[in-house]
């Protein structure tokens, strides 16, 4: 089996040490870093994504595979030139003010990181000022807001209005999620998108950030 095949298989199995070993072996064989990335790591994660969607993998397997991918990527980064060395982009996430629900947002974060995005997690009970400050500082491609309560979901509009007032609304895509939220609500508050679960949140981010 070729080294890249072994690398891909190791990644699909979530074997962190083997991914490191085969990534190094591929480099030693003179395979370009970009090829290792595309045909080894990215190709492997694509299979992981399919297995997750088809119910063969659960979240723990996906996160383990993502960890393996990052272990390989760390070896490639110094050798990747220009855009290839960059992550897929920065995303800022937070649960809105008055709401302490965390785990759904954390799962979205983990899935986005698995897809190659850098994620800034502002935590829970995040107020407008903190969202605005983070958007200005990190210049994310996407701002994601989560709410699990009917009494906190409307705060998402407060944040979107504040982005408008600050003149930075057109600099960032805004997505929303959480049990009481739906597509209609997202549209009504001026968000760019809504995702009902973590997997679809990743697809939505990819769609919104596609050049």
């Amino acid at each position, binding site marked *: 089996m070729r080294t890249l095949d072994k690398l891909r298989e190791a990644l699909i199995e979530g074997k962190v040490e083997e991914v490191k070993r085969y990534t190094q072996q591929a480099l030693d064989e003179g395979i370009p870093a970009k090829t290792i990335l595309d045909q080894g790591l990215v190709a492997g994660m694509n299979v992981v994504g399919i297995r997750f969607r088809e119910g063969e*993998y659960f979240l723990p397997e996906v*996160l383990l595979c993502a960890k393996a991918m990052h272990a390989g990527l760390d070896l490639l980064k110094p050798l990747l030139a220009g855009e290839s060395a960059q992550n897929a982009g920065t995303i800022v996430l937070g649960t809105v003010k*008055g709401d302490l629900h*965390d*785990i759904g947002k*954390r799962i979205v974060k983990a899935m986005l990181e698995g897809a190659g995005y850098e994620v800034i997690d502002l935590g829970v009970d995040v107020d407008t000022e903190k969202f605005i400050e983070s958007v200005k500082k990190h210049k994310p491609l996407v701002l994601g807001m989560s709410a699990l309560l009917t*009494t906190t979901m*409307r705060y998402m509009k407060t944040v979107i209005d504040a982005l408008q007032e600050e003149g930075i609304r057109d600099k960032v895509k805004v997505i929303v999620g959480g049990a*009481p939220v739906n597509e209609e609500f997202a549209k009504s508050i001026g968000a760019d998108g809504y995702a009902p679960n973590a997997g679809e949140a990743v697809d939505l981010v990819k769609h919104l950030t596609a050049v």
Partner: protein
Amino acid sequence: MKIREMAYTSAQEMIFGFAKKPVTVANGLTFGNGKVIPEVNFTLPPMDLAHENVPEIRERFKDIANRIMERCVEVQQEEVVIEFEHLFDMTERPDFGAQLTKDLKEVIETYCQSHGIKSALRVTVADIRDRVRPPRMRSGKEIKTMLRSFELCADAGADILSIESTGGKEISDNALMIGDVEGLLFALGVLGPRDMDFLWKEIVSIARRYDVVPGGDTACGFANTAMQLAHQGLLPKVLAAVVRLMSAPRSLVAVEVGAVGPLKDCGYENPIIKAIAGVPISMEGKTSACAHSSPLGNIAAAVCDLWSNESVQDVKLLSGNTPEVFTEMLIYDCRLMNTAIKEKRAEILRDLMVHSDRFLDPQALVLDPKVMYEAACVIVNAGEDKFKQAVAVSRYAYEVLKEAEATGKIRLRGVEAKWLEKIGKILERLPKEEEEFYANVKSRYEGHFIPEEYGLN
């Protein structure tokens, strides 16, 4: 008080409507004394809880309570419990939560006087300590605010005090995401029980001071989170089933330090605690589908004493708004169970409810009263150590699932079966003593929890 003996002598003895130790609130309404009583919970529609909206929120609360009570009158229901489950702001601002408690109690009392409806108000205070991670469970200002909230609500008319406490959640959230069984044991077998012991001594003390009932606590943030993740295909159902039983020793602590029930609805581990301690329990199932789906619709009712809808947001339907609509649904659920009791056919109905669900999902299987009773025995036989109890009951859950799979009672997908094997192996190699376990895992979770906040070093 550590419980060393079982309240029940067999699973067959356990049935809906009857608890070994019935509980009575101030107005004489009794739980677990031969009747299942509906417990209604509601939440607000989209609106914000800012100070300037308090008058509108109060009116809305009173209106909802009036509609619930009116529906009780219409369908001739004489007993009902309303649960007021705080949103975070209502605990964060104790006067606000207490005012709403007072408003609800006034409506309840009005209907008691005008129509003779015996009602009770359960107030569930929010655990606001989880705002910052790692949380300060004992030393932060949040615990003082929470206890103040309990106190003011008890004074304002609460009949029953409850909470879904979060000790250990800072570990379990991540442990669930990565399927870390040891992390879950650390959260539910080490941190959770310590926090429960600390917190519930305080709650019981407040309840006694105000002569109200210290109800109980649920592992909602742990086991129900697992159930929901499994429902979304993010976690194996077998793991959620094991976590359910693993959570029971932790929830039992409230009763060990003075809670008397009725335990709160979303604790599907409640039948285990009922088997051990004889306390009445509230449960939720098919009529809580408004809040979340579950594979436990009928089986959850098998040994309940109160029957709840979990929570429903106040929106208009054709026959009225959701709180009164779900009140009516709960009433008819309860009426059927109570008729079965009256006509001495309760065991038949109980068994039908169990049989309808138990082999369709691993999480339903572990809710079978026979499994719950045996799990209770395993906990009692494991001694007083909470870690040992959690390990023993988790192993028991594994064995039940394994046996059911081997005999073809339940069918597990290949990936579920692999997870069950994995869970079994992890449980098998655990150290016997908590001290050794803690020494093994402490560095792994360092920085994610504050040992001193749990009385650990």
